[in-house]
C-alpha cells in the first residue's frame, strides 16, 4: 500500500509479538539484544494440540480406560491374549443373550468387550513410534548404500579421466616420430644434417676470425674442417632442382643480415 494515501490499512496477518520491539538493528550490533525466547512445548498447529513434554502415546488412564495388558515388553504375547479374550467375551455375551436377554450382566460384558478392543488398539499405537524409529534407521542405511555406490562409480570415472589426460600430456611433451622420406617423384634430395653442417661452417668462420690471434689448432681438427667444407661445396652444387641446401643457406644469410642490421 502506498504511503500518503491516508486510509487505515487493515493487515490480514497478526502483528508481530511484543518482544520483537527489543530487537532493533542497533541493539543487535551492540550485543545488548536479549537472547531468543524459549521455544514453546505446548502449542496448537492447525487446530491440533501438541504437547511435547508428555509421552508420544498418551497412556490409557488419560482416557479413563482400564489397562488390561500386563507386560508392555512382550507385545506379541499380550496382543494374542487380548485377541483370545475378545473372542471369549463375545462368546459369553452371546450365551447371556441366549439365556437371559435382559440380564444386567450383559451390559458389563459389552463394556468388557469394549475395553478389550480399546486395549488392542492402544498396544498398536504404542508400537507405532518404534516402527517409525526403525524406518528411519533403515532409510539411513539405504542412503549410505546409495552414497557408497555413487562414490565408487565416481572414483572409477575420475580414474579413467585422469588416465586419458595423462596420456594426452605424454603425447604433447614426448618426442615426435621422424618425418617420412620424400618420394622419388618430387626429386628432392634428402641431405641429412645439412643445417647442422651449415651452422658448423658458420661457427668455423667466426672461429677463424678469432683464431688469427691464437695458436693454430691440431692437425686432425683442420682435416675435419676441410672435409666439412668439401661436403658443403658438394651439396651446394648448382646441378638439379634447387636443393634444400640452397634454401637453408639463404635462410642463414638472411639471419646474418638481420643480426648485423639489429647491431647497427
Amino acid at each position, binding site marked *: 500500500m502506498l504511503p500518503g494515501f491516508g486510509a487505515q490499512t487493515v493487515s490480514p496477518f497478526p502483528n508481530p509479538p511484543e518482544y520483537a520491539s527489543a530487537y532493533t538493528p542497533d541493539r543487535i550490533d551492540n550485543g545488548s539484544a536479549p537472547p531468543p525466547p524459549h521455544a514453546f512445548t505446548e502449542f496448537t498447529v492447525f487446530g491440533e494440540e501438541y504437547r511435547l513434554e508428555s509421552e508420544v502415546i498418551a497412556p490409557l488412564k488419560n482416557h479413563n480406560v482400564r489397562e488390561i495388558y500386563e507386560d508392555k*515388553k*512382550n*507385545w*506379541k504375547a499380550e*496382543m*494374542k491374549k487380548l*485377541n*483370545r479374550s*475378545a*473372542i471369549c467375551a*463375545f462368546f459369553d*455375551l*452371546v450365551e447371556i*443373550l441366549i439365556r437371559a436377554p435382559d440380564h444386567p450382566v450383559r451390559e458389563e460384558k459389552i463394556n468388557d*468387550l469394549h475395553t478389550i*478392543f480399546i486395549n*488392542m*488398539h492402544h498396544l*498398536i499405537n504404542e*508400537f*507405532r513410534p*518404534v*516402527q517409525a*524409529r*526403525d524406518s*528411519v*534407521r533403515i532409510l*539411513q*542405511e539405504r*542412503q*549410505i548404500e546409495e*552414497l*557408497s555406490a*555413487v*562414490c565408487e562409480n*565416481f*572414483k572409477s*570415472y*575420475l580414474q579413467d*579421466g*585422469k588416465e586419458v*589426460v595423462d596420456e*594426452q600430456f605424454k603425447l604433447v611433451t614426448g618426442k615426435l616420430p621422424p618425418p617420412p622420406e620424400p618420394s622419388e617423384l618430387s626429386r628432392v634430395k634428402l641431405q641429412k644434417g645439412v643445417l647442422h653442417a651449415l651452422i658448423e661452417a658458420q661457427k668455423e668462420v667466426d672461429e677463424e676470425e678469432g683464431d688469427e690471434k691464437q695458436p693454430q689448432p691440431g692437425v686432425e681438427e683442420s682435416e675435419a674442417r676441410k672435409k666439412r667444407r668439401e661436403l658443403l661445396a658438394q651439396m651446394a652444387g648448382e646441378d638439379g632442382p634447387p636443393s634444400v641446401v640452397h634454401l637453408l643457406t639463404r635462410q642463414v644469410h638472411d639471419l646474418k643480415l638481420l643480426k648485423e642490421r639489429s647491431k647497427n
Partner: protein
Amino acid sequence: MADRMTQLQDMINQMATSMTNAIGVLKDTAPPCEFGAISQELEDEPNCAVFAAEIARFAKHIEILIDSFPIETGDVEDEVESKMLQNDAIHKQKVEELTDLVKESNQLVEIVQKKLSEIAQVQINSRPSE
C-alpha cells in the same frame, strides 16, 4: 496395500464390526420361536454359521498377523538409537568423501578446459594471416 500395522488395525475393527453385526442381524431376522422348544426353522438358520465362521476367520487372521511381526521383546530403544547415531557418522563421512571427489573432478575439468583453450588459440594463430 497398507503396512502390516494398518492391516492389523483394520482387521481388529472388522472383527468388532462383524461381532456387532452378527448379534444385530440374527436378532432382527430371527423367525418366531416357542417357549421351551427349538423349532426346525431356528435350527436351519444359515446366518449363524456364516457369522460364526467369519468371526473365527478374523480371529485367526489377526493371530497370524501378530505372529508375523519382526518385533523383538525387551528394550530395543537404546540399541536402535545407538545404531542411528552410528549411521549418522558414517553418512557424514561418505558425504565428505563425495565432496572431495567432486573437487578433484572439478580440478581435472579445469585443466582440460585450459588445454582446450590453448589449443584453440594456437589454431587461431596458425591460420594464414591476410
